[in-house]
């Protein structure tokens, strides 16, 4: 991996290439946008400036055929290429405790453990228990009453109940 110093920030050729546009508002705007992006990644100021200069240099060389300062579009694309290339360096240099995530690479941070599939199937449960309860109750009552002796007892009980209620009135 090339060191950041070799990006060409101090290279006189690169500086001479940029010199005419240094004060133009477009160049400044591009510079600020690229720098802002690096600041959001918590890159230390010195390194951020180096990255910015290198991104602008790359962008300039990419659009050598067109006159004027590099566009934001070109500069941002160049910056992203650079960042991908130097991600591990960025992580090392990041000025906060937060890691730098780019391109879905979470640096070993995993949101979920590997799957270990199991089953959870509902046990049989009566979904209409009231009706089942009533049916069960009626069936049991019919079974009991269908036996002659039980039927006789019930019959006598009902007669007695009727007599009692009549007398009560």
């Amino acid at each position, binding site marked *: 991996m090339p060191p950041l110093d070799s990006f060409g920030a101090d290279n006189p050729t690169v500086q001479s290439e940029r010199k005419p546009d240094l004060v133009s508002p477009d160049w*400044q705007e591009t510079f600020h*946008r690229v720098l802002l992006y690096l600041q959001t990644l918590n890159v230390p100021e010195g390194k951020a400036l180096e990255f910015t200069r290198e991104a602008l240099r790359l962008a300039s060389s990419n659009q050598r055929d067109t006159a004027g300062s590099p566009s934001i579009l070109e500069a941002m694309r160049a910056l992203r290429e650079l960042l991908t290339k130097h991600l591990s360096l960025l992580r090392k240099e990041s000025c906060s405790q937060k890691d730098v*995530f780019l391109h879905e*690479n979470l640096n070993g941070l*995993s949101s979920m453990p590997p*799957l270990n599939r199991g089953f*959870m199937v509902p046990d049989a*449960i009566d979904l209409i228990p009231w009706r089942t309860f009533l049916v069960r109750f009626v069936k049991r009552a019919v079974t009991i009453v269908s036996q002659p002796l039980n039927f006789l007892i019930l019959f006598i009980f009902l007669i007695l109940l009727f007599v009692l209620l009549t007398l009560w009135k």
Partner: protein
Amino acid sequence: MNQLLVNAAWKKVSRIRRIFLITLILITTVVACLFMSNILPHKGSTGLEVAMVLVFGALFAWISIGFWIATAGFVTLMRRYDRFAITSTFLESNHQGELSGRTAILIPICNEEVERVFTRLRITYQSLEATGRLQDFDFFILSDSTNPDTWVEEEAAWAELCQTLGAVNQIFYRHRRVNLKYKSGNIADFCRRWGKNYYYMIVFDADSMMTGHSLIRMVQVMEQNQTVGILQTAPLGVNRESAIARVQQFANHVYGPIFGAGLNFIQLGDSFFWGHNAIIRVAPFMKHCSLPRLSGNPPLGGNILSHDFVEAALMRRAGWEVWLAYDIEGSYEEMPPTLLEELKRDRRWCQGNIQHTRLLFSKGLFPAHRALFLHGAMAYVSALLWFLFLSLSTAEAIAEVLRVPDYFPVMRSLFPMWPVWHPQWALTLLASTGIILFMPKFLSLLLIIFRQRRSREFGGIRKLFLSVIAEIILSFLFAPIRMLFHSKFVFITLIGRQVGWASQQRSEHETSWLEAIRFHGPGMILGLIWGIVLFFINRSFFWWNTPIIVPLILSIPLSVLSSSTSLGKVFQKIGLFLIPEEINPPRELHLLQTMTQNQETFFAPISISTKEGFRRAVVDPNINALHRSLLGKKRNLMPSIMKRRQELLEKALTQGPKTLSPKEKKELLLDPQCLLQLHERLWETLDHTIAQKWGFPPKRTSL
């Protein structure tokens, strides 16, 4: 072997205790009903009076359950020995022993306040770390959040927490795209994916917090009781500042212990599961506790809302025990900050508990759990019964005034029958009802002052006594308001209207006058009309009902004032409703207080609030990459969906984030390609107006 013997013993003992409890409840209820029928003008002989006595009987039986349970708890705690307390099997010598397996701590959340949730998680993690047993635990944040901003905020908070604590591969985060079956579905989803990796799981609520020692203790108790499927702790309410919540957390601290001990006395291994601050044995839970979908439509059909009671019943049905570890300390939760928040929560619980009546006769359930289903439903149905009782008694009072007295109701009678009213009997009944209602509070007071000698933890005997008196007055004032709302909830559920599963607002906030008028206005009007009618038709009955009518009329100011944090602070300053955690806060709660300042932080150098998750996911390269990474594999989409998302992307780029609805934001967040494109094109844009809409600083003209 000893454990098996204990198990055999508790089953026999529980049967005897429950029969004893039922007998006591029946005796007190029958006596109270006889009194009631005697004080009525026609001695309970008319249809209206019979209905009144029946409703009164049901209500009296309901309140006497609480009384007898509290009495049982009082006796247990006075003895300072509970043979069947599940924690009595805990041996301190085994504290450092090897565990059977790992434990997962589950934190299911749904559109909660991210900062508070993650602060609690951080403290629990650090507390566990301090015990030296952290390696036996993993944390899972199981998110069902539907708010796009909250979703991204959670992801960012998770990544930050993992990095700052060095908890990579120990704190996990999962977001469900479809929140099927709400919380129970979320837990089941965890079990299906990773349940086999864990022996136990400890379920938290969004407002739960437990100390490391309490977590370890729960695991140890489970280790020593291999027949226990669920172990529930009794969480204590803490951390609140609003007046009503302070009253609730004080009541929870003072009266909670005797009710906890009493419930354990009666239920033993057939206890509750309250859905949080509990440990569950994963394998039997996965095998037996999956919830079916009830036939028919909501509210009584469909997904089971109050899943915890049903899961406990299913666990018990499969032969595993469910215990309440009422004496494990270090288990905390937070009370709803306002009366309205409490009522919103109650509406959901009401529907869930009434739904349980569908399972009342399900085959195989233990009678104790059928009773718990009924008990849960009665918690709300009792309000409707009270309302019915008041309506019937008002009808009777009005009828007595308007009806021409019949002095010769029996044919061929020589003497008239004068309607006789016995005020002393009415007063006796009133006094006995008061004893049933307030005796548990008095017993708690006795226990704290004379047996536990902990009154200093509540600010001293005088302040404790005054706080209990103030709590009784306030609960007296709030009871009719709660009754009216609960009656409405039961009625709404029974006529088939359902409620959603909106998340609670758990942070401190005050009820506005407008909100209070909207919610309590109808109740206040009802109270006014009722009061005026009674005042002019039957004034003596009006005076008897003033404790109910006056709070209803004052419900709006009561609701607003009780939500006030400044009033809560005044209470705290004068020493009312103090709890031990305020006088001598445990380290964990102290940390929570200092860390949860709830200050909205901004993401530098771009001025986007951390709460604006969607904008951060688009603008911040870190969050953008993190979110895309957490979305998982790239999916093949239908051309129509791709086209729609492309249109949304263009809309976002040309009109800014404010023009997007939450649904549109969520759709963009679900597509990693779209999100990357949006991020790149936004940073490459030359249009400063759009860039500023997304939070970029204004254009700078010089270096």
